[in-house]
């Protein structure tokens, strides 16, 4: 039948060409006014120069708060946004500008799983038809073969074969997410773009889906681009992590590296804000409480996008660079990309140590930090 990507091994990938290579991705949405004569009165800079690589069989996690552009990035890669610029190379082919049959052929190898398992499945279709739809659209197999494949897929995601005859409303949130995964797997994709796949689920169900995602990745050599705000879950499943803020990449590194030594003041604050399910550690924790809210992407601040809320800038006595120059993403050893003029000052700072000091307090009692 179909054999795409199934044979590919989950390699560490660092040597080989990446499966997905994104460079300087820009997505702007026009803000329009008027009813009959729509005129553009500005743009929302949803994504502004995002670059990353994703290798076969690996998971890239994208974290950030609402409005940071992580979902827009995901949708740009599956080409659900029209007005994008930059470069998205998938398995050697440029996707930006691709249209018609060529785009359709690439699309079967990139599938998407959505956040809301309630609205991403057509309530009037039986589960069997939902899962078989990609096969039908791409004219794969005979109806009989498709039925057999649907049965297989349902079992792969942990649902009984007879589920094919039922409707989505008969299933719980976790089970619906399994149905969405079965649909995504139907065409043997190489890449699954998952936008908040677990955030609508209950705590006890999340682990089931995370385990299933990990199992499927091993089984089929899938690459995941995972968008999530649950930082602990991202760490659990990702090989690399991208941190976004107001449409820009603030920092990216391997998961181990990022969580061992976050280098961007925003990442440090983000990690320090996550409540830890351990009351003893929580009692000893000192958080960085950021001031204010995320600015509107329609009117982003000049210079570094994070500067109005940055604790480091304040600590350094408000140096002018932060307001005037946008810091480029630069490489710091060992292999850590960070967009901050003063990232070196974060390294080994008390704040960084505190943000990742989850196991034991590293400061002797009585010292006054910060």
């Amino acid at each position: 039948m179909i054999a795409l990507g199934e044979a590919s091994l989950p390699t560490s990938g660092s040597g080989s060409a990446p499966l997905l290579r994104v460079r300087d991705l820009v997505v702007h949405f026009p803000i329009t006014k008027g009813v009959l004569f729509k005129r553009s009165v500005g743009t929302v800079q949803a994504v502004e120069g995002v670059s990353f690589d994703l290798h076969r069989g690996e998971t890239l996690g994208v974290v950030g708060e609402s409005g940071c552009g992580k979902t827009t990035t995901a949708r740009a890669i599956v080409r659900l946004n029209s007005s994008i610029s930059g470069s998205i190379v998938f398995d050697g082919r440029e996707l930006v500008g691709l249209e018609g049959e060529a785009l359709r052929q690439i699309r079967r190898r990139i599938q998407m799983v959505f956040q809301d398992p309630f609205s991403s499945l057509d309530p009037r279709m039986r589960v069997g038809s939902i899962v078989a739809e990609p096969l039908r659209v791409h004219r794969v197999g005979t109806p009989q073969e498709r039925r057999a494949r649907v049965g297989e897929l349902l079992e792969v995601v942990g649902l009984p074969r007879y589920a094919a005859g039922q409707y989505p409303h008969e299933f719980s949130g976790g089970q619906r997410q399994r149905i969405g995964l079965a649909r995504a797997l139907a065409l043997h994709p190489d890449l699954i773009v998952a936008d908040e796949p677990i955030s609508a689920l209950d705590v006890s169900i999340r682990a089931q889906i995370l385990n299933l995602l990990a199992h499927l990745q091993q089984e089929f050599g899938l690459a995941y681009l995972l968008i999530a705000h649950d930082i602990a879950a991202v760490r659990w499943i990702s090989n690399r992590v991208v941190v976004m803020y107001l449409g820009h990449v603030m920092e990216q590194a391997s998961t181990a590296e990022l969580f061992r030594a976050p280098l961007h003041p925003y990442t440090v604050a983000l990690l320090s804000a996550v409540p830890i399910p351990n009351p003893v550690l929580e009692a000893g924790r000192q958080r960085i409480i950021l001031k204010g809210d995320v600015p509107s992407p329609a009117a982003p601040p000049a210079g570094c996008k994070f500067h109005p809320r940055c604790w480091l800038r304040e600590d350094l006595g408000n140096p002018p660079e932060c307001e005037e120059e946008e810091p480029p993403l630069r490489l710091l050893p060992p292999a850590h990309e960070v967009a901050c003029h003063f990232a070196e000052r974060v390294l080994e700072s008390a704040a960084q140590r505190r943000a990742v000091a989850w196991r034991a307090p590293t400061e002797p009692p009585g010292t006054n930090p910060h």
Partner: protein
Amino acid sequence: MSDRAILSVEDLVVRFKTRGGIVYAVNGVSFDVREGETLGLVGESGCGKTVTSLAVMRLLPKGSASVPRGRVLFEGRNLLELRESAMRDIRGKEIAMIFQDPTTSLNPVLRIGKQLTETIRAHQRIGRVEARARAEELLAMVGIPASGRSISEYPHRFSGGMRQRIVIAIALALAPKLLIADEPTTALDVTIQAQILDVLRELAKRSGAAMLLITHDLGVVASMTQRIAVMYAGFVVETASTDLIFAAPKHPYTVGLLHSIPRLEDEPTDLVAIEGMPPEQRREPVGCPFAPRCAWRIPACWTTNPSLRPVASSPAEDADHQVACHNPPTLEEADAGRPLRSGFGAAPGPGLSAPLVVPGEGGLERP
């Protein structure tokens, strides 16, 4: 903090009449909130935690909800027996509530100053000017900058985090003795959540008010509460000090929850998922509600609902630790996340082949 309870919920039962039949939402829930403490009510959606809090506030929908049993004692008075007019005096003034979604809990067509002063003047005989001064003071307390100007803005001018601050200001306007916060930060981003939790923690400490914090987030309860009651399918299955719940959980569901979340503070390990899903509460509960998903279950679990009892042989300082389980996990088993004794094997229904769907019935299969 004292050991005196400001709120005692005793054997509370709440049912809903729906077109699909009766929903057994809350099935004999008991817990205390003590003076000055924050109690976390933890559980997943549908476990009855919000319904319990609405029952305390007497805000359950009149037509469909019934409370056939139970008492809600607030400072010794049973709120379920009060007349509506007396209850109105208690709401807002003695017990205030903060809801999950700050967008819907503010009136979009009233300036926030009006919403604050309205609350104050509904319960206290003070003049406009005085009320306005008090409103400004409250906004400053929850960290709304330039309160003088913000006070005449409409809610849509504020971000989600700011709106939740305003909601907190309104809740605190009359210095309530008890604050019920229902998922107060679930709709917010993590850095904003940190801000709001900080405000709540600070204000609870400063005002000495007790708090009932309803959440599904184990990180939030760990950072905010002194004690926890864990709910499952309309039952309180375990209650203890926050430290003990995390260090020595005694109910298989609590153990399962703690093992099923990815941790930032440890190296990533295998997640032990709780397989299956919570029961649909459309049948009168028989036996332990967690039995279908429980690796520790014994025959009695199918027939007899275990009552909440003090944990056997616990040292004196653990006297508060209560669990509703016929066969609680040992400390080693709680650490491992699975039974270690012979005769207790794999958890029922592993995710990849479980009897997940029973069409029409909605429940889980039982042997």
